[in-house]
């Protein structure tokens, strides 16, 4: 069974996911950021499901492992969709929503195909391996897409504070997870990575709850002030 610290982080993450939805509802932003909120709700359902699987089958059981990796892949796809809706928000005035969605579907299909080709040689548990590979690749694709979106925000001088913070916190989340996956591949026996992941998992709902609760939709800021390299 995982240690009490992991349980504590898991509970905290679940509470923060509820907080995101509650804050969005309270500030009448649920529909405006529908996909982000649906992702949080789905993540909440997955947390409950994982807990049930853990209690029923145990941490070392194949049932828990299957549930964990399949649900993680579906969650990552949900987050990918949430990121694409942030693209739609940023490019709203340019009326490019149709092209953004088409590009997103093609990229998702491309990532899935790439993941399939990577695991094709594996003889055992191919489906599980595929979902793990897909999650890992989607985190990296998500990181690159968030980086491009941040570049677009700076270039287009997007000033909506809430949108900027949602994108930046998503960037922190994707890059932290992509770095963690890479670290796991570099050092498979490095056990401490397992403790870092739940900490990062708490940061995204915390930042989003803060953005919904504290920042009004009409709050504005100059994004050029936020760039690490001055523009």
């Amino acid at each position, binding site marked *: 069974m995982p240690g009490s610290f992991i349980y504590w982080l898991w509970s905290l993450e679940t509470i923060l996911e509820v907080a995101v939805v509650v804050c969005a509802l309270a500030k009448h932003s649920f529909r405006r950021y529908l996909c982000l909120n649906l992702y949080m709700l789905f993540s909440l359902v997955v947390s409950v499901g994982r807990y049930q699987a853990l209690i029923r089958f145990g941490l070392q059981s194949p049932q828990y492992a299957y549930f964990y990796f399949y649900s993680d892949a579906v969650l990552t796809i949900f987050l990918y969709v949430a990121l694409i809706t942030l693209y739609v928000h940023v490019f709203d005035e340019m009326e490019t929503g149709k092209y953004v969605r088409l590009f997103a579907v093609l990229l998702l299909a491309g990532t899935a195909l790439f993941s399939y080709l990577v695991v094709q040689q594996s003889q055992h548990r191919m489906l599980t391996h595929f979902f793990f590979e897909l999650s890992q690749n989607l985190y990296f694709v998500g990181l690159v897409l968030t980086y491009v979106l941040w570049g677009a925000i700076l270039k287009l001088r997007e000033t909506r504070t809430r949108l900027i913070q949602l994108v*930046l916190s998503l960037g922190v989340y994707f890059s932290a997870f992509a*770095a963690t*996956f*890479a670290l796991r591949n570099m050092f498979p026996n490095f056990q401490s990575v397992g403790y870092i992941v739940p900490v990062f998992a708490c940061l995204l709902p915390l930042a989003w709850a803060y953005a919904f609760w504290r920042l009004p939709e009409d709050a504005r800021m100059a994004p050029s002030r936020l760039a690490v390299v001055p523009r």
Partner: protein
Amino acid sequence: MATLIFLFSAAALLQFFISYCRSLIAASIKQPLSAEVRDVTGIASAASGDDFARVIQLLQLCPERPEDQSEIRAIGAYFRLLNFVRATVARIIPALVAWTEMERGQCAYFAAVALERRIAFSRDMLSQQLDA
């Protein structure tokens, strides 16, 4: 390949984290400090990085506001990161010294604004208690 992904992800993480902390600070920078807070913190005109620890100590003396806990922690982490950069990389790249000092000053100003809010919050609580 994993090393390359790790390096890119770590660089992106650093950049996103810095920009996120700056977005938290940006909202406070516009807010002027009252004369009272200036007296208490010793920040006369522009805040310097050396004021940060003192302002944080003063913050800890005030009753906590649940709303500002997470942002103060994030800025505290950012301040420690800046101290690390100042003590390591900035020794090799001197241009970073001025940048880290400016950022540390903004962290101190952010903490002073948070202190101002906590003082106002404490006064509100006290007046509510007196009214009751």
